[in-house]
């Protein structure tokens, strides 16, 4: 049945498109797919490094994410612990098995109970890195993989994302270019802009529908403690 349906649908489309030359059309399609040319990128997606940082924070906070800036990597564990204490959240957390996160001195915050792995139903707090942070709309870009399981982004009540300044890009297109440069296309690319929300009951906006109620971003300004 499936082969027949495929041919029937494609056949109908081929007849309907009424192209003068199929060779030319195929070439045009091939070129477009290989070229992945940019369309208009809004001016706010073309800022310099300082502009990006300010816009990212402004946009992320506008959609109910919270942001802590830390000046060096050594400040990250303390910032996470402070955030959890401030929100009255448990200090037991599930952390992505991401080598990037090993760079932070977690032992210096002994109150944090850290388990590494994918998200489980009982997890209250997850900590992950990000592939990129997109200034244009305060969006985080995460890639699935053994170092960044997707379940961590959706199952816990609180999602804490540690982003390094070098991971900041101006627009989504910059994110795609960085991804293509890695030479791999992960199973899943998640763009995350603020915590989960719903307005399905009487148009009343509420956070924490099915995904995280809290999205906290720890932004590491400096690349080294030097």
């Amino acid at each position: 049945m499936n082969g027949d349906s495929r041919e029937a649908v494609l056949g109908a489309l081929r007849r309907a498109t009424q192209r003068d030359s199929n060779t030319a059309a195929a070439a045009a399609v091939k070129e477009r797919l290989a070229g992945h040319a940019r369309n208009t990128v809004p001016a706010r997606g073309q800022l310099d490094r300082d502009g990006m940082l300010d816009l990212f924070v402004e946009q992320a906070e506008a959609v109910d994410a919270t942001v802590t800036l830390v000046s060096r990597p050594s400040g990250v564990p303390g910032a996470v612990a402070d955030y959890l204490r401030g929100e009255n959240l448990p200090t037991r957390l599930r952390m992505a098995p991401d080598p990037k996160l090993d760079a932070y001195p977690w032992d210096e915050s002994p109150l944090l109970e850290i388990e590494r792995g994918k998200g489980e139903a009982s997890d209250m707090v997850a900590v992950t890195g990000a592939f990129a942070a997109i200034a244009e709309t305060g969006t985080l870009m995460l890639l699935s993989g053994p170092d960044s399981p997707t379940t961590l982004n959706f199952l816990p009540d609180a999602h804490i994302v540690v982003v390094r300044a070098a991971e900041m890009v101006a627009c989504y297109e910059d994110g795609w270019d960085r991804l293509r440069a890695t030479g791999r296309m992960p199973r899943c690319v998640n763009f995350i802009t603020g915590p989960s929300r719903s307005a399905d009951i009487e148009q009343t906006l509420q956070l924490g529908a099915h995904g995280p109620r809290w999205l906290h971003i720890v932004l590491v300004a400096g690349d080294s403690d030097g």
Partner: protein
Amino acid sequence: MSAEAPTSHRFPDNARAALADETLQRGLASAKVGFRVRRSEAAARLPEFETLRDEARDIKDHVLAHLDLYLEAFETRVTERGGHVHWARNAAEARDTVLTICRAAGAKTVTKGKSMISEEIGLNAFLEDNDIEPVETDLGEYIIQLRHEAPSHIIAPAFHVPKAEVAETFQKHHTTLDPNRPLEQPRQLLEEARAMLRDRFLAADVGITGANFLIAETGATVIVTNEGNGDLTQTLPRVHIVLASLEKVVPTLEDATTILRVLARSATGQEFTSYTTFSTGPRRGEDLDGPHEFHVVLLDNGRSALVGTELQDVLRCIRCGACMNHCPVFGVIGGHAYGWVYPGPIGAVLSPALIGVEEAHHLPSASTFCGRCESVCPMRIPLPGLMRHLRERGFQRGIPPAAQRWGLRLWAFLARRPRLYRLATALPLRLLGRLGRRSGRFRSLPLAGGWTSQRDLPAPQGPSFQSLWDRAGGRREPPR
């Protein structure tokens, strides 16, 4: 269920009932204002918004002219990534494909992200008939599934249900919970749905989502949600099935990005939706989570027949709902009156195009042609023009009642003969003017009951426009 028996042919009755439904009227009044204000504020915040609309339109026009080629490219990429593409000519084929996959997976429960295609093919009723339990996970969809209702808006499916009725529904269905629990606040209702659905997410064997886009370049399917339900639906079960119609394909990640910039702003007025997710195939060897199987069902169901026709532009639709949020007709009758899956101006074009003018000929007539829908459509679909075309098509097929058709013919005959037209209208106008001189209006009039049953007809006053025009020395011929 809605796909099985459209009620679009009963539109006048449906609309009358909707106008008399006070609960619905309250919901409509509060919803439309919010949607309109948020969209216009979001558009104003992005100076490039109008340029992006042009580009979004051009992307889809290019795709539709090369739809076969982009779908083949998409299929190749999905297959390379270990996924499966299934082609379905119609609703029955799509349902059978989903059932076959579910059976092979030994599925008992299926969680579902929001999908209009699922509504279009009547998937839930079909799965239930085959002993598989579908669980809608979008909050709005969950509410109406429990109430055995159809969605009344494509992005706010339960906006017609007031919170007190949601509470009643939850009391009735969540029988394991304390019957005396407080359920007055939206927050309490949301928390309860979140807790109840969490267990369903974890237990499901198959997750079914729709797709906002298919990316030919990479073989990715894209979903856009605010709740995160679509992501839990597609990440936790062993099998992920994506339901998508043919026209969802776009060439590249850049092209999807451009359309995403206008989608959320047009729909909810957000800068970007909370979760935009690109999925490409099943979990990779070293992944710790994600589905083991990835299937895409590509549904035609009448769409290939629109390509290359006067109605092709409707296939640019990205289902943002802006047209219905701004429609004065939708604004007073809501979604259910339209009688099939797609309400509002987009439904007034898509329904007759997909299920036929015979069933849905009332819908393109349910428009004042005010043009607001076209002015806000992010894809610049000329909705009033398409409705006009469908009215003509209905006329040509002899669908409107004989009196209406002959009346139009007579009018057309006279309108093409200005001298005769003036002669034929002058006498009745003078007569009406004299009869209605005292009150200035008519409460009832023979042959005009359709008008006077709802409102008075103003009596003609003074000379006609054309004679005034003549007197003022106006020209009859258009300037050359």
